[in-house]
């Protein structure tokens, strides 16, 4: 697989993870130009060789052609037929499978291949058929009747020549044998025999005459032995002539063989005609010897006879081998046709593939790109228009890949920013939920968008208000001042309206510092409103307490100073009137006692004022509230007959930091108030009513406070007195200073807590002290 030509840009590579780049359509080996060129050269070489062989076929022996060449050609033809069948079958099956799978361009490719094969196969098969018929008919016309007659007649003439020569030689042999029949053929007859046979040789009638003497004759074939007696030959015999043939012929004839003639070819091209005749003692009698007469056929007639015979044999052999020889040429032709057919078929399929393959690759690439594999690339396989198309495809895929990476990067950035925004929003929401400042936001249409927990607590709203028009939400009677604040804020876009409003909540006032701000868009349109309010009730209370402390200090200072002179004056007056008449003295005593008593009362009042004004700051320390309550409430056990002090203490209170003495004072104050209220109530109520005071603790983990609840089943507190309940010098009791609950609130406030008063169900009062933990 080659390295892709197109990939992510350098800038993208740094941020985009390395992607697997796939390249489609690697160049197959058969597409190698060198291989194709080699194939063409081999094909042309094979054609040239085949033509050369066919051209030289006339020089080859017919039987060699019909055996070796025909066999080789047949094998080659069968091989090529198998190859052709394989190529056709393979491609037909491939096309069929492609069509069955409905692959892209399968139909087009099948048509293209069919057209190219048709253009190749049909002419080739027609040429093959016609050419075969031509070869077959031509082979039949090789042998015509005139040539046949001429050659047959000529061969007969040549045979006649040989026969005549054989007869001549035979006659000489018979004659010589007859002449020698009177001799005993022993050693003494050698000279005589030589004389008789030499004359014929010397006269040129024969080439040689050999006389053999039979050594043993038992009348059985194969049991005869001969020995040469006389051998006479011309001094210039033919090349390669030997007497072995004569001896064999003599032996055969001596043994009674029928064949008394023999033609022996010589290495020099000539033939030797031999004829043998037996030498008998008397006609039909004992065989004494054998005469073998020989003559070499070396003349022109013999030469031409041999040529005629050769031509006749060649002609006859051609006739015999007519079919194989025609088969050879037919095989040549078939082989050439098959070579062309295979080449054309392969070329047709190759061309079809070359045409459809780039398109298929492009289609496959488009599918891959469509499936999201943007790193898919196609290897260019040519430099033609298809190559340009592939380049364009790869460029497009590269651009798509780059764009996708950019989009991916943008998406990740956006997600990160969204995540950051969401985190920021959650952070702000958490802050908004945690802070004591109430925040209510409204959208551009005036609908409530958000309400934080503090706002819900301060305004008595729940989450159901979100989405409702602010005008409807703040139309509630106790929230009307907020509606006015919003209205003022809406008067001018982008302005803010700050007011301090007092809302009635659960029978008491809640003072809020409200700031309403309208949000504006870049073009000045109202985008919403945010209303922020702080509960300034404790602050106001503290301010009031501070004011009262200042007043108390001034009053104590201003009142206490004249009290002593007043008391002294009164006592002086009483002493002065000790001598006065009793009525007068009684009057003075009464008046001075009253004055002194009231002055004492004023002094104690001023002392309480002073104490309230000089109350020290709480000294916070870790302490157990439940233990403190147990110890404190233990003082009340069994103290009252018809009043019971019960405890309901939370066992899992956390550790707290508070001033135990001051908190004990708070508890005592609240319980004493409850006892006073119950005693007064029990005196007026029916018998049997039992007063119950419940001191309860609970832990509010969400608000991080510990609640100390003192609940009684007394008459309760009228609504009109509740607001003034924690103010100094307000008392519902005839002998109270009115500073008890004021001190309680001050202690609670200085501990960072809060105290509320509410009705008890079904009757009575509930004080709720919240201390931070």
């Amino acid at each position, binding site marked *: 697989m080659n390295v892709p030509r197109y990939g992510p840009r350098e800038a993208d590579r740094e941020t985009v993870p390395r992607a697997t780049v796939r390249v489609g359509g690697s160049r197959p080996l058969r597409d190698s130009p060198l291989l194709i060129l080699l194939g063409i050269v081999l094909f042309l070489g094979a054609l040239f060789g085949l033509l050369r062989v066919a051209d030289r076929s006339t020089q080859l022996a*017919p*039987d060699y052609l*019909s*055996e070796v060449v*025909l*066999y080789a050609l*047949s*094998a080659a033809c*069968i091989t090529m037929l198998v190859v052709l069948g394989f190529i056709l079958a393979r491609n037909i099956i491939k096309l069929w499978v492609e069509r069955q799978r409905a692959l892209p361009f399968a139909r087009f490719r099948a048509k293209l291949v069919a057209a190219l094969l048709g253009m190749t196969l049909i002419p080739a098969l027609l040429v093959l058929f016609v050419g075969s018929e031509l070869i077959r008919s031509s082979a039949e016309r090789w042998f015509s009747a005139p040539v046949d007659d001429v050659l047959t007649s000529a*061969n007969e003439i*040549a*045979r006649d020549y*040989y026969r005549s020569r054989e007869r001549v030689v035979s006659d000489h042999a018979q004659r010589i044998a007859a002449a020698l029949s009177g001799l005993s053929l022993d050693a003494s007859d050698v000279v005589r025999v030589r004389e008789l046979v030499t004359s014929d040789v010397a006269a040129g009638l024969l080439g040689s005459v050999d006389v053999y003497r039979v050594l043993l004759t038992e009348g059985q074939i194969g049991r005869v032995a001969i020995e040469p007696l006389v051998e006479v030959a011309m001094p210039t015999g033919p090349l390669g002539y030997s007497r072995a043939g004569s001896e064999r012929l003599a032996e055969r004839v001596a043994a009674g063989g029928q*064949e008394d003639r*023999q*033609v022996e070819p010589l290495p020099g091209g000539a*033939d030797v005609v031999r004829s043998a005749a037996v030498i008998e003692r008397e006609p039909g009698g004992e065989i004494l010897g054998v005469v073998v007469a020989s003559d070499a056929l070396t003349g022109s007639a013999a030469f031409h*006879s*041999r040529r*005629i*015979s050769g031509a*006749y*044999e060649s002609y*006859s*052999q051609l*006739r*015999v*081998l007519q*079919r*194989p020889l*025609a*088969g050879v040429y*037919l*095989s040549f032709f078939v082989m050439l046709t098959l070579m062309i057919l295979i080449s054309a078929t392969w070329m047709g399929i190759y061309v079809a593939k070359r045409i459809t393959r780039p398109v298929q690759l492009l289609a496959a690439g488009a599918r891959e790109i469509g499936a999201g594999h943007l790193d898919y690339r196609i290897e260019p396989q040519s430099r033609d228009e298809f190559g340009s198309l592939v380049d364009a495809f790869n460029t497009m895929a590269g651009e798509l890949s780059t764009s996708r990476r950019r989009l991916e990067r943008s998406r990740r950035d956006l997600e990160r920013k969204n995540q950051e925004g969401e985190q920021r929003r959650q952070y702000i929401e958490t802050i908004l939920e945690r802070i004591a400042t109430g925040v209510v936001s409204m959208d551009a249409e005036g609908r409530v968008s958000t309400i934080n927990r503090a706002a819900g607590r301060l305004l008595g709203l729940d989450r159901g208000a979100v989405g409702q028009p602010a005008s409807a939400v703040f139309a509630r009677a106790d929230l009307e001042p907020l509606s006015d604040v919003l209205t003022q804020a809406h008067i001018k876009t982008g302005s803010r309206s700050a007011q301090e409003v007092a809302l009635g909540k659960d029978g008491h006032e809640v003072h809020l510092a409200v700031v309403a701000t309208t949000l504006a868009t870049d073009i000045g349109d109202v985008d919403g409103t945010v209303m922020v309010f702080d509960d300034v009730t404790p602050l106001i209370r503290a301010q009031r307490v501070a004011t009262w402390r200042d007043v108390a200090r001034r009053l104590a200072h201003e009142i206490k100073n004249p009290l002593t002179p007043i008391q002294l004056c009164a006592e002086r007056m009483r002493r002065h009137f000790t001598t006065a008449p009793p009525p007068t003295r009684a009057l003075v005593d009464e008046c001075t006692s009253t004055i002194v008593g009231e002055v004492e009362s004023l002094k104690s009042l001023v002392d309480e004022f002073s104490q309230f004004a000089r109350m020290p700051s709480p000294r916070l320390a870790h302490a157990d509230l439940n233990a403190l309550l147990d110890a404190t409430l233990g003082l009340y056990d069994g103290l009252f007959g018809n009043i019971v002090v019960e405890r309901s203490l939370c066992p899992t209170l956390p550790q707290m930091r508070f001033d135990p003495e001051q908190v004990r004072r708070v508890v005592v104050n609240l319980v004493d108030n409850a006892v006073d209220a119950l005693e007064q109530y029990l005196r007026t109520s029916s018998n049997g009513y039992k007063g119950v005071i419940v001191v309860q603790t609970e832990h509010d983990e969400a608000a991080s406070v510990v609640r100390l609840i003192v609940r009684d089943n007394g008459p309760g507190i009228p609504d009109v007195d509740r607001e003034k309940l924690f103010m100094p010098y307000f008392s519902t009791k005839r002998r109270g200073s009115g500073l008890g609950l004021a001190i309680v609130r001050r202690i609670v406030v200085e501990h960072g807590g809060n105290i509320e008063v509410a009705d008890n169900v079904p009757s009575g009062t509930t004080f709720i002290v919240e201390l931070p933990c």
Partner: protein
Amino acid sequence: MPRTEIATSKWPTLRRSPPLGVCGLLLTLMVAGVWAAETVTVTTLTRDGQVLVSLDVAGAYTQDVRSSVQSGLETTFRYDVRLSREAAYWPDSTVGSATLAATVRYDSLIEQYNVARMVDGHVEETTVAEDEDEVRDLLTRFERVPLFSTERLEPNSEYQVRVRVERRPRAAWFVWPFARAWASGVVRFTFVP
């Protein structure tokens, strides 16, 4: 004194074999009917430690062969002889093989036939003949040629001698590389020492 048994070819014959053999015989008959042009008569004789094989395919000297011989072409009859031991359900195991050949060349000028007969490539006999009948016998008939030794034969076992004949030159248009024999024959015998 060794016993001698002469077995003659019974082609086509039924084998004493299970149905598979019958099927093979039928198939052979079909093939023979379609393809076999000539039948070689094969005769075996065991004597003096040798398996003597006699062949006769006289019908193979057809007009085509005669024309081929008369044209002066060197015409050859090649006999591939294979001695094998029969197995019922398994291919026969070859004990030995030999090649006989008879080649004739006719000189139309002097009207003589030069015949050479060879065994395993060695010329055993050369004959110059003028009688065509003699030539035909020389080409198509071999008498008691000792081809195999009986040393490798197991007593009382069944053997067969299969002969395939090829003729050259062939006179076909087309030469099939896997050509079957031009003529064939087979003979079975039980070796009794």
